[in-house]
């Protein structure tokens, strides 16, 4: 019975997945460039959230500093494109590798702290990063803002179809996100994924079965940094710039974490959905309160109200779906399935 249910789920999942993929492939052909850019943003948010989910969801290490790794990716790409004439596509592996290496460097000292203390250390990372860029990056007019030439955002010449830069960016982000999603899927189902979860759930037991705690934690940190770095690199394709401000980097870090939690911690698809929702909700609330007449002259308009509405929506969402979208969906599915085919009584399946 379990085998049949699994096959059914696989078929339904494949159909739904292909339908979504079909829609996504069609999407940039029909929509305005601004919408395509918005959806591309949603995709790279999802990528960063996927990585953070490996660290926070599967490995139990909370980071509120991944905006910094995102920034490392963005600056790597922007500087290589702008100052050294690289093609944007070629910079992505470099951004990924650099974020990974810095992830190792940060992950090793992070071994000494856990839980809230780790969160504080990573917060420090998010706070320090903009200052570092101000010191070392020479961008537009001596600021830390690096702008890439708009020609560099065009698709490479070998790409067929006369794509616009927005469309190219969308397909690029989509392709990379699918590859990285596959990466998460493979990790979670394999030996390393089990080690991640074991370390999260019981360190002593994980050690006694042979899991190297330090190695596992540092690798989780570095992998999640890699994902954030790739997301940052892709952001340059959308925005044409790399920049880091104190609030911005911190805000990004929080949003990645929010995306993980909304989507569903320790689920494969959750962070992608969460990243999408975070970007869309933010966009909608910004539009919605673009010009609140009843507040004019009282508060400074959307800068205050948009985060407030965003926050309220988060609270409502978490109240109704404490285990995220994917968790809630699973519960719903289970309720439907168990109503249709009553499970075998527990006693029967447990007796030796």
């Amino acid at each position, binding site marked *: 019975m379990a085998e049949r249910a699994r096959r059914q789920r696989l078929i339904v999942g494949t159909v739904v997945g292909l339908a979504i993929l079909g829609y996504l492939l069609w999407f940039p052909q029909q929509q305005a460039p601004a919408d395509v850019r918005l959806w591309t943003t949603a995709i790279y948010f999802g990528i960063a959230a996927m990585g953070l989910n490996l660290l926070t969801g599967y490995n139990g290490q909370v980071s509120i500093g991944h905006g910094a790794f995102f920034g490392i990716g963005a600056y790597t790409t922007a500087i290589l494109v702008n100052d050294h004439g690289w093609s944007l596509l070629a910079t992505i592996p470099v951004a990924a590798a650099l974020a990974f290496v810095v992830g190792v460097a940060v992950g090793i000292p992070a071994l000494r702290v856990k839980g809230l203390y780790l969160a504080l250390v990573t917060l420090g990372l998010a706070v320090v990063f903009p200052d570092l860029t101000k010191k070392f990056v020479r961008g537009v007019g001596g600021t830390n803002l690096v702008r890439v030439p708009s020609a560099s955002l065009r698709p490479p010449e070998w790409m067929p179809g006369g794509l616009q830069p927005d469309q190219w960016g969308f397909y690029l982000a989509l392709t990379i996100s699918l590859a990285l999603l596959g990466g998460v899927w493979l990790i979670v189902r394999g030996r390393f994924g089990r080690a991640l979860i074991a370390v999260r759930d*019981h360190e002593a037991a994980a050690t006694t079965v042979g899991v190297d705690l330090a190695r596992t934690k540092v690798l989780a940190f570095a992998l999640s940094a890699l994902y954030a770095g790739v997301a940052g690199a892709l952001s340059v394709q959308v925005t044409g710039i790399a920049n880091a401000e104190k609030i911005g980097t911190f805000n990004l870090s929080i949003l990645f974490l929010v995306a993980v939690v909304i989507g569903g911690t320790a689920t494969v698809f959750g962070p992608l959905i969460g990243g999408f929702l975070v970007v869309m909700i933010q966009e909608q609330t910004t539009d919605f309160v673009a010009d609140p007449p009843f507040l004019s002259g009282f508060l400074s308009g959307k800068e205050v109200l948009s985060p407030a509405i965003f926050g309220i929506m988060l609270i409502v969402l978490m109240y109704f779906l404490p285990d995220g979208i994917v968790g809630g969906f699973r519960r719903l599915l289970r309720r439907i399935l168990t109503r249709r085919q009553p499970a075998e009584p527990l006693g029967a399946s447990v007796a030796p």
Partner: protein
Amino acid sequence: MTGAGAPARLTVDEVRVEFGGIVALADLSFTVEERQICALIGPNGAGKTTLFNCVSRLYEPTAGTIRFGDTDLLGEPAHRIAAHGITRTFQNLALFPALTVLENVMLGAHAKREREHARRAQALEVLERLDLAHLASHHAAGLPYGTLKRVELARALAAHPRMLMLDEPAAGLTHSEVDELAELVRTLHTELDMSVLLVEHHMQMVMAISEKIVVLDFGSKIAEGTPTDISGDPRVIEAYLGHPDDREGA
């Protein structure tokens, strides 16, 4: 690695553990021979689990050596102990609730360098042996306590250990389950050619399966011998039941 030729004897030599000013183990020495079932008994707080945690490398002894075969265990990191052939269970279940029973047992063979499907097949074999195969795809969370204890035992067996350490395996089990467990440990010990180091309060089980018993009290060994030796030893009786004079007064 433990050399193939060296007998898998556990040698605990003058091991001392202090927490702050409290002496948890006071220069404890004993051996567990290859293929021996050895029980470690004593009142609560005698230092039995502390010794387990030293062998697992979760605690760092203040002094002393622990050898297994020709390996100096105290020179090894904690996660290498399983690869040397020593696995264990915990006093209060230490399973991974988010994982399935099969995944839990596959983690038991984590230290082995082998392909994923080989590890899976091996884990399924162990589950089969412990009559748990039908639960392979169940999540560990939500299974009954007695079943979970068997799953934990399966996890400890997945790596085919040369020495299995069981920390109060009978605690919380019903009478009939304890009898079953005792029988199971005895047959597994011969089937799998391993030694067993057992911490247990259930005296009937200890007496039934142990070839050797080490009695601890306040971190020191107060007696050592066969079950027959131990059950007649006045110091053991005193540690467990109090001094005869005290009892008369009570």
